[in-house]
């Protein structure tokens, strides 16, 4: 059996909304093997994004344990969580989340800024990655000068710049048309083939079926059997 990169047990995340307590995750057990491509399916509010945030160390569980790459994330302080995000995971968002005032290469190199990497080295690595996602000629463009697909490719390059062990993708093609989506998925597959573990949140069962090595369906903060494709929103 391959090594587990993610091992979560009885994971719960609750938060308060006014006077009500929202149970975003209810005692979820979840594992990912190194090198897997896991798709998390479910409607909005099903808890899949919450799980992704916990995996990425952007959020911490209310109860339970979540061990990623040997580290118990529930026990890390804010600084250690930042270091974990910096070194272990790369995020790809539905809305790209590029810094609008920075040029493409500067966006790609942003994680390196916080690692203290010098400007020349940052530029070199950013150019390399932009080349690999097919944007070698657009390194000096700002996001507003690029199409959605191009922006998402910049975001992928940024996610890969630290050579993370795991890529966390939140609806990476949600804002893109079909053709562009295929290109983006191809880039993600490429990263997967090169050894990265992928966890992708999507509401598109077809996308999950076509690309993921395993699909998990969530509803109401829990995993449910993946038997009713028509349930997909």
């Amino acid at each position: 059996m391959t090594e587990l990169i993610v091992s979560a047990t009885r994971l719960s995340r609750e938060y308060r909304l006014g006077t009500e307590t929202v149970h975003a995750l209810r005692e979820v057990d979840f594992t990912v093997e190194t090198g897997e491509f896991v798709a998390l399916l479910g409607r909005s509010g099903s808890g899949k994004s919450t799980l992704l945030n916990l995996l990425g160390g952007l959020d911490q569980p209310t109860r339970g344990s979540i061990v990623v790459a040997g580290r118990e994330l529930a026990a890390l302080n804010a600084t250690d969580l930042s270091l974990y995000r910096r070194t272990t995971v790369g995020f790809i968002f539905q809305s790209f989340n590029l810094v609008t005032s920075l040029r493409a290469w500067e966006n790609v190199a942003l994680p390196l800024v916080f690692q203290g990497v010098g400007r020349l080295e940052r530029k070199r690595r950013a150019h390399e990655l932009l080349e690999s996602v097919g944007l070698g000629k657009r390194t000096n463009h700002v996001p507003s000068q690029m199409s959605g697909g191009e922006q998402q490719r910049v975001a992928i390059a940024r996610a890969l710049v630290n050579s993370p062990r795991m890529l966390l993708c939140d609806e990476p093609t949600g804002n893109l048309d079909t053709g562009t989506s295929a290109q983006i998925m191809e880039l993600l597959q490429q990263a997967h083939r090169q050894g990265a573990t992928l966890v992708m949140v999507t509401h598109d069962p077809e996308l999950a079926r076509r690309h993921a090595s395993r699909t998990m369906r969530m509803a109401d903060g829990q995993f449910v059997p993946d038997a009713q494709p028509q349930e997909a929103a």
Partner: protein
Amino acid sequence: MNILWLAIEGLARKKSRNLLTMTGVLIGVFALTMIVALGQGLSHAVTDTVSGSDNLRQIGLTGGYGIELSNNPADVTIEGEMEEDRRERLRRAAVNRRQIRQWSGRRINEIDDKTIAELSKLPHVESIMPVIVERYTFEGAIKSDGSLTGGLDVNRRRYADRVIAGRYFSADDADEIILHEYMLYKLGLLTGKDYDAVLGKTVTLRSIVNAGDDPTANAPPQLRDFMDSLSDEERAAMMKILPKLMQQFGQMAQAARKPVQREMTIVGVLRETVPGDVFNVIEDGNAVQTDVFMPQETARSLFNESAINRELGYPRALVLVDDPENAPAVEQALRDKGFTAFSVASVLQQVETMLTVITVIIAFLTGIALIVSTLGIVNTMITSVLERTREIGIFKAVGATNWQVQAVFLAESALIGLAGGLAGLATAVLAMIPGDAIAGSLISERAAVPYTGSVFVVPLWLALAGPALGMATAILAAILPARRAARIDPVKALRHD
């Protein structure tokens, strides 16, 4: 370095807003720098004017009232059994009477040759020289109804370098005079030829004796008022006996005031002071109005020819101390002996203390401008943090620590403060050029001695303190907004529009 790059990048995005905020700091630092530089400049001006020459070694000495009691109210005690409020009343009365005694009544301790000889024995006293300023008339080669004369210390070759025609005195007791160029100008003598016509000539010096036909001419104003209040008959009667009366007094006064008369030789012409001339505040204070100069000993012997002068003593004397360091001790010793003494050093100290106090007070008031600019920075930073919530989320997602997020905003604010501070310093330095010219002309209009130094002085510490202060206040202003940025929840921030 990388954080700094992010900060600069962040600032560049909202140029006009950040420039405005920076202008606030600029104004604050500008005003502070100007005020402190002015304080420094004035303090330098005062020091420059009096240091260098013998100023700090000199003490002005005038007669005293023989008060050897302490002026310190705390030293006054009221004896006897009484209620406390009465004791306090009496204590206040005692203090008030002491203070009044200083300014009223006849002087007990006069300065004459005897006291000078006595006081010269005090430790650290190098010499004591009476300051003699007398008005005499001149007749002969030049004519004057009354010119101010002064003695010059020939041994120290005082003013020798200011003689522009003729020569300096031949001896400390020579019957020679040197005339001020202004006096000669008023007499219509301007050229070298004019000067040659008077140099070497003799003049007769006489003390001023007032004797007119009106017997009341020299009478005190009260007497004249009294005369005016009389009826015509009374006044006629009065005028009959008054001349007799005045003659009686006149003979007595004449005896005491036997006119001094001496033949003097004009040997030289003295020019007005120019920047760079030595100026001793106490010694040269009167010389700025003096037209006729003579050797110190000559002036002294002329002064002492008058019986009334001998009786009243010298109005003032100049004490020369061996070292400036001993001036305060000698000053105190003279006061302890019941004389009135003031050294330039102690006056200087008072002036400097006052200047410092004023500068600090005004600087604090000016500091309000900086406080206002701080509020501007707080406002700018809070707005900036709100606007960039999503960006902060991105920073955190790609691995920025809370401290790094905070540092970006602190660095932005620090840059605003530093830039504002440097700009404020630069503006102040530029503003000092016309400021100096204006202040310089104001000073030269009023001062006896021209001052050529700068009125604004920016010492290195001030040049560093302005920008540093701007930066420090800016960093302080950004602490809360920056913390707020650091605490932003990345999950919410990434969904923020």
